[in-house]
């Protein structure tokens, strides 16, 4: 499904601030695979996702999605097939537009935008139905502006927007990092439900080691732009956070330093 072959990305090339973010990184993801990504600060996790999404252009290597080379296609074109949820709850929605208007934009993902009415009656019915699945009472607030929602509600909505048209790939960049632990848990649960229900090929970065082990069918650990550990679902069984940290220290030769890392 997703094939990332030897991609490299260096920021500020040739300057004193040169930073190798991705170093010959390769990853193959099968259909419906759900990978969680962990790693320290500056390991290149977000850069990795941004390169797949087309926010940054890669320096070398190639990216294939469904056997199509998307290495150099612009961000908005890739977005037809890639759903994204960002860390910042403000980033995923248009605050000055209503819930149903936001969903309507998401619902035309990949389709030309014409001069037809933005929302039909059938659309509203569908949106209410989908919102009800989030179990946040948003189905009764479709005409309210998104600016009035809490961070957790926005992330749940963004998740719905990213998946309302089934994407070929779902990218989650620490989408619970800015939320309260209890709300984060709920968003994790929603993520799991949607990803499993739709059998979505998913990459989820998380700072929560425990969540990384609990969720997904595979866990990879990144360090200095490389994948230094790759556990499949069988290998993940019985793995503890302590073991993971020990492995990290041994393989990277440094101490794990993610200032937001949650161990428990």
């Amino acid at each position, binding site marked *: 499904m997703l094939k990332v072959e030897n991609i490299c990305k260096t920021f500020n090339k040739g300057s004193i601030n040169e930073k190798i973010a991705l170093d010959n990184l390769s990853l193959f993801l099968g259909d419906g695979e759900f990978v969680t990504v962990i790693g320290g600060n500056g390991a290149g996790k977000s850069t990795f996702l941004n390169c797949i999404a087309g926010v940054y252009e890669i320096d070398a290597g190639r990216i294939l999605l469904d056997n199509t080379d998307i290495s150099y296609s612009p961000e908005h074109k890739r*977005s037809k097939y890639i759903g994204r949820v960002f860390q910042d709850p403000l980033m*995923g929605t248009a*605050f*000055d537009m209503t819930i149903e*208007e936001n969903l309507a934009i998401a619902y035309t993902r990949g389709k030309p935008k014409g001069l037809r009415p933005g929302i039909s009656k059938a659309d509203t019915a569908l949106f209410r139905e989908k919102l009800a699945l989030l179990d946040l009472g948003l189905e009764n607030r479709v005409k309210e502006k998104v600016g009035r929602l809490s961070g957790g509600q926005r992330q749940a909505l963004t998740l719905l927007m990213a998946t309302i048209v089934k994407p070929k790939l779902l990218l989650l960049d620490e989408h619970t990092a800015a939320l309260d632990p209890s709300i984060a848990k709920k968003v994790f649960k929603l993520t799991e439900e949607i990803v499993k229900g739709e059998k979505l090929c998913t990459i989820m970065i998380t700072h929560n080691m425990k969540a990384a082990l609990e969720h997904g069918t595979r866990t990879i650990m990144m360090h200095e732009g490389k994948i230094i550990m790759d556990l499949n679902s069988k290998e993940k069984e019985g793995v503890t956070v302590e073991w993971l940290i020990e492995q990290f220290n041994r393989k990277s030769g440094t101490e794990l330093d993610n200032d937001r890392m949650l161990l428990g």
Partner: protein
Amino acid sequence: MTMLMSLAATLQGSMELGIIYAIMALGVFISFRTLNIPDLTVDSSFALGAAVSAVMASIGQPFIGLALAFLAGCFAGVFTALLTTKLKIQPLLSGILMMLALYSINLKVMGGKPNIPLLNKPVMFSFLQRLDLGKYAKLLFLVLILALIVVLLYFFLKTKLGFALRATGDNDKMVRALGVNTDITIIIGLAVSNGLVALAGAIIAQYQSFADVSMGIGMVVIGLASVIIGEVLFSVKTLMRRLIAVALGAILYRLIITIALWLGMPPTDLKLVSAVIVAAALSMTVIKERALSFKSRRANSRRYKGGQV
């Protein structure tokens, strides 16, 4: 008594002008609020519209002049948008560059003359005289045009394309993540914006039977003032109300200026006053916050005034 009658006539005139400026303000609303881009092209696209309209009216085609003026404004907006999106020039600078370039182009449109008088030429209002509808005919005609534009703009902003446009101003990153080419939405948005501005310029030229190459100077500021006055004074809960608020803001702004002039303000101070109004309106939130924090600080220090530490 005669003074009051002259005031009534003046106010009616300024209402009419205000309605025409409302069309321009709606254009500024699209760039400034909907797309969140401060577009300075407005000053010149207004004059461009006036120039095109005057040239066409002077050869006996006032209505075709309006249509062509709108299209010319759209083109101006497209060029500004291309500078911003494709060449990555800052929006403010793109607008300034287009403003400068259009000045020369406007002169070319006007055949090298700095102004075109339209005395005794048929204009868009000429047919009203034949219908003999009384002294409010012009006003009603203009209200109709404005209402039509507000309704059309409302429906446009409620289409799928309109959604994409509004979301681009709100959060361009999110819109790209949802598969929208934000370059295209910005191009379309600035085209519609400057089209409306040019249309307003076109109507003004025929209304006052006169086009001048420098008649657009300060138009951005008037547009901004109208948008802000409208938003502060009227309800902006729904999109329709917001559009109406902007239109009313423009009319109110014109009335305020008229009354100030009537009270004896020299016309040469007009631009200074406009700038002051906009600066005050833009800084309103900051001033409010400062005032509140000043109050709470003073109340707080009073609480500790007993001298005990």
